[in-house]
């Protein structure tokens, strides 16, 4: 009882940081109605733990309910709330206002994706390219037919691909990629990283199929190793690494 009391005392004596405020600039654009985008400005108070998504939802609740933003999990797992925050693609739920170190926070829709409305972009092409590289295990038999009932892997074999399995398909890498900025046909870092994820999986037998898919003029050769995709990835996937390893297979450095 005494311990509970001391925790309560400690919590009561812990000072809450005083709320500060920022100017939140939200891009407003409806492609069906508007000729160009415009910015709506709101003064929003925040604590040191307030995320950009919470600030946007605060605006929706108290100032302008028409702001279009897509979100779901609020914990960097669903990959829904990617947007340009002060010029860089980030997840709004994973970006604290305090870490931006700016009195003005500008949020815009992600580059290199068609705008549906305001901060919401269309992911059809992202998923289309993701599907193109056949993101599943390719082999003739199945775990149900195997005597062992599952395809066993050593921890070392898992390490080869598990980093790339963290992809949440948020599209930040495609938004940061300089090639995606100019080439609409480029398969993109997200799909290429997933191609490596399955090529590196010891259970998969579809390496040649996938390498054939990406070995085209708008495929892997359009990557110039700028590395921006890896810098913005919120899950530590490092697409640039996977792409260079994939290219190593095609150039004969890896087998």
């Amino acid at each position, binding site marked *: 009882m005494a311990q509970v009391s001391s925790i309560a005392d400690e919590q009561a004596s812990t000072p809450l940081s005083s709320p500060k405020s920022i100017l939140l600039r939200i891009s407003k*654009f409806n*492609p*069906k109605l*508007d000729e*160009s*985008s415009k910015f709506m400005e709101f003064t929003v108070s925040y604590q040191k733990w307030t995320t950009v998504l919470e600030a946007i939802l605060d605006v929706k609740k108290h100032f302008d309910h028409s702001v279009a933003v897509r979100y779901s999990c609020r914990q960097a797992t669903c990959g829904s709330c990617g947007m340009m925050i002060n*010029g*860089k693609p980030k997840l709004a739920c994973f970006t604290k206002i305090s870490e931006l170190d700016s009195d003005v926070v500008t949020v815009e*829709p*992600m*580059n*290199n*994706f*068609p*705008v549906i409305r305001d901060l919401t*972009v269309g992911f059809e*092409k992202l998923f289309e390219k993701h599907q193109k590289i056949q993101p599943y295990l390719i082999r003739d038999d199945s775990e149900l037919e195997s005597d062992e009932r599952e395809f066993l892997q050593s921890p070392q074999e898992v*390490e*080869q*691909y*598990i*980093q*790339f399995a*963290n992809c949440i398909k948020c599209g930040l890498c495609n938004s*940061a990629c*300089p*090639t*995606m*900025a*100019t080439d*609409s046909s480029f398969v993109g870092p997200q799909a290429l990283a997933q191609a490596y994820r399955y090529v*590196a999986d010891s259970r998969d037998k579809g390496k040649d199929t996938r390498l054939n898919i990406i070995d085209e003029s708008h495929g892997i050769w359009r990557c*110039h*190793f*700028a*590395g*921006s995709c*890896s*810098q*913005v*990835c*919120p*899950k*530590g*996937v*490092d697409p*640039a*690494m*996977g792409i*260079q*390893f994939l*290219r*190593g297979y095609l*150039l004969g*450095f*890896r087998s």
Partner: protein
Amino acid sequence: MTEDEHREGIKGMANPGRYGIERIAYLLMRLTGLGLLGYFIAHVYETSNILRGRMGWDDFLAMTQTTEGHIFLVLVIGMCVFHTGNGIRIMLGHGGVGVGAPARPDYPYQPASQNYRHKIGIYSSIVLAAVAMMYGMAVMFGE
């Protein structure tokens, strides 16, 4: 803005300020590549002047002996050295050399492919290009 792909275009490709030294190296690589391509075309045109005989050749070569000609050649030296040094770094990276090894990522997720080896390669290429340009200036403007 229209209901299209919302691409950044050349402006986004050429904006080096947001993603660190790797993106600056990417831009410099493109610019120096275009510059060297322009130099190659100009060089073919220049050497073709030999068909105009000794007088024609000497007349054209005199253009490179001016201050502007020397500055142009100094830039060519810088572009050539940076493009070569950074090109070797990128070719090694494309083969999977020096880009780290796959591992379970830990927050705050520093990408292994953007490691100090590649940063050293980029800075070395820039420094080498600067040294070569200074040497070129000393030779051409020295006497």
